[in-house]
């Protein structure tokens, strides 16, 4: 989107992001700022799935596996080490390695999209069961108990790197999370313009053609998936810091489902939409949690069902079409190949 040679698509989110980063702390009280911090963390989680699903075409139904691994890796490492610089990195490294290992088996086994979805979902389910049932004192890593269904309370927060006495207060956490969100968003935008990003998107469009041209689709899918896993781990690490508490629900089906719903509602194949979806639906989660009338599962199940059946493209692409269609010149008819799924969908 260019108007008078200016990259609006870069400037608008950039200005909005910076305005929020520096503006919100002036206008909001601390409680609201804490909420916004949570939304920013969830938006990072949404971006990680938006990248691998929307651009890489890899349907990861068990994304909470990497979110939870990041959360637990940070909690366990920080309890053992006491200073948060290394645990922060470990929290990103562990889910990255896990995603690389699982991805190796999935993509080098060349299993189909649907199997990838089921495998990742199963991974999350089994991690949930494992963490949920390791509550005894015999289950510990170093000084840290795993805690089972009780989770780990009182996890020490982040401190200024290499300065354990200088821990971050909630205001600092806001700047950190919002800043990281902006960095992740523009980082992914940049990544998608690189050769690697273009190949990843090409694989989403037609994996066979990409292979014929000579790219290794397995390696590119593995890299996409690994990056997404690492980012989800980052979100998990920030999430533990936000609440100073980690429980097995970070691995739960509901957590995985929510990320899928954020991305689907916002729009698969966009980065901005899933962030909006994450913020809007996280807000809704808080609202639903504060009343007894409607069960959260019921509401989110209904939202997922309605969007799959009626708005499968998500809100963002539909809105862009509507608004952009109004203000820009009528488009030239573009030749588009029929969707791959229509030709290869039924095996």
């Amino acid at each position, binding site marked *: 989107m260019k108007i008078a040679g200016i990259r609006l698509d870069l400037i608008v989110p950039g200005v909005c992001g910076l305005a929020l980063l520096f503006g919100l702390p002036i206008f909001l009280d601390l409680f609201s700022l804490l909420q916004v911090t949570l939304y920013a963390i969830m938006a990072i989680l949404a971006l990680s799935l938006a990248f691998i699903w929307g651009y890489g075409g890899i*349907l990861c*139904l068990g994304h909470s596996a990497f979110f939870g691994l990041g959360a637990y890796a940070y909690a366990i490492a920080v309890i053992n080490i006491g200073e948060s610089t290394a645990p922060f990195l470990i929290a990103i490294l562990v889910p990255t390695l896990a995603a690389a290992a*699982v991805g190796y*088996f*999935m993509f*080098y*086994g*060349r*299993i189909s*999209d*649907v*199997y990838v*979805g*089921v*495998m990742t*979902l*199963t*991974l999350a*389910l*089994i991690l*949930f*069961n*494992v963490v949920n*049932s*390791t509550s005894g004192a015999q289950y510990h890593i170093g000084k840290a108990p795993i805690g089972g269904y009780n989770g780990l309370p009182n996890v020490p927060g982040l401190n200024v790197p290499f300065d354990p006495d200088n821990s971050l207060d909630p205001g600092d956490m806001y700047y950190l999370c919002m800043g990281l969100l902006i960095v992740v968003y523009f980082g992914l935008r940049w990544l998608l313009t690189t050769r690697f990003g273009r190949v990843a998107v090409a694989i989403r469009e037609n994996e066979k053609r990409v292979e014929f041209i000579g790219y290794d689709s397995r390696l590119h899918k593995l890299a996409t998936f690994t990056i997404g896993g690492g980012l989800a781990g980052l979100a998990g690490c920030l999430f533990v810091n936000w609440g100073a508490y980690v429980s097995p629900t970070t691995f739960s*089906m*509901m957590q995985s*489902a929510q990320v*899928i719903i954020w991305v*689907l509602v916002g729009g698969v194949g966009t980065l901005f939409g899933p962030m909006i979806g994450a913020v809007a639906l996280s807000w809704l989660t808080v609202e639903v949690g504060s009343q007894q009338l*409607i*069960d*959260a*599962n*019921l*509401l*989110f*199940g*209904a*939202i*997922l*069902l*309605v969007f*799959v*059946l009626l708005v*499968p493209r998500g809100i963002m692409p539909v809105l862009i079409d509507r608004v952009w269609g109004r203000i820009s010149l009528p488009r030239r008819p573009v030749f588009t190949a029929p969707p791959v*799924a229509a030709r290869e*969908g*039924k*095996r």
Partner: protein
Amino acid sequence: MAYATIVGIEVVYAIATLILVSLGLAIIFGMMRVINLAHGEFLVMGGYAATIAVHHGVNVWIAILIVPPIAVGLIGLVVERAVIRFLYGRMVETMLASWGLSLLIVGLLTTIFGSSTEGVPMPLSGFTIGAYQASGYNVFVIAFSLLTLGAVYVLLRFTRLGLLARGTMQNAAMAAALGVDTTKVYAVTFALGAALAGLAGGVLAPVAGIVPTSGGSYIGQAFITVLGGGAAALTGVTSAALLFGSVGQAATFATNPVFGSVALLLAAVVLIRILPNGITGRYFKGWL
């Protein structure tokens, strides 16, 4: 010797439950290429159907073997007509929609029954082998799984309904051209899969506590069994259940149930790497 018998029964029981839990999913996936993420909730609804029937004074055997498949089969029929039929051939969308359905059902069950654990009394007493106590109901579950497997095989292989179903799944357009009402076949097959899920939920009701969210504990195993098995529904599930059931149960005996389920997952991941299309993708081709 007595201990070996007990271990043997436990391993066979693990395999039998895997078959029972996965069969409905395998029918729906193998025959219709639909991955039903609400499978676990179908099982749970079977369990609730059994508990309601028991609370209303129905004989416990009727409550666990007759009521759940009928109730969940009917629900499956409604689900197919209301949601699934719009999404045939779009596997990803079907998965997401059925996931939405799964959350919706969990929400509905929580709203109706609350989140307390329900149960059904154990209809069979135990017996002793040497110095060990064995559960009579486990032996019943083993026998019943084999019976169900045989019944489904006969239904698909030797009846007109089975013939129409297999024909439709192989080539729907050709079947329709020959005068088969394919939409009806799809609906009935989905309902059959749902009924089998409900039956599994009913049969397992006396051994497992029932809460709205307990579907999650079944579907992980069911999915990897069906994926590991591959395209042929019955052979696939049986062979994968044999493999995963023994691996999981052996690991359970060596350590504890938690690592048993981890071993199961690892076995599945390795199997998928070696045989991406499942066991029946390479062996037993063309079997049912």
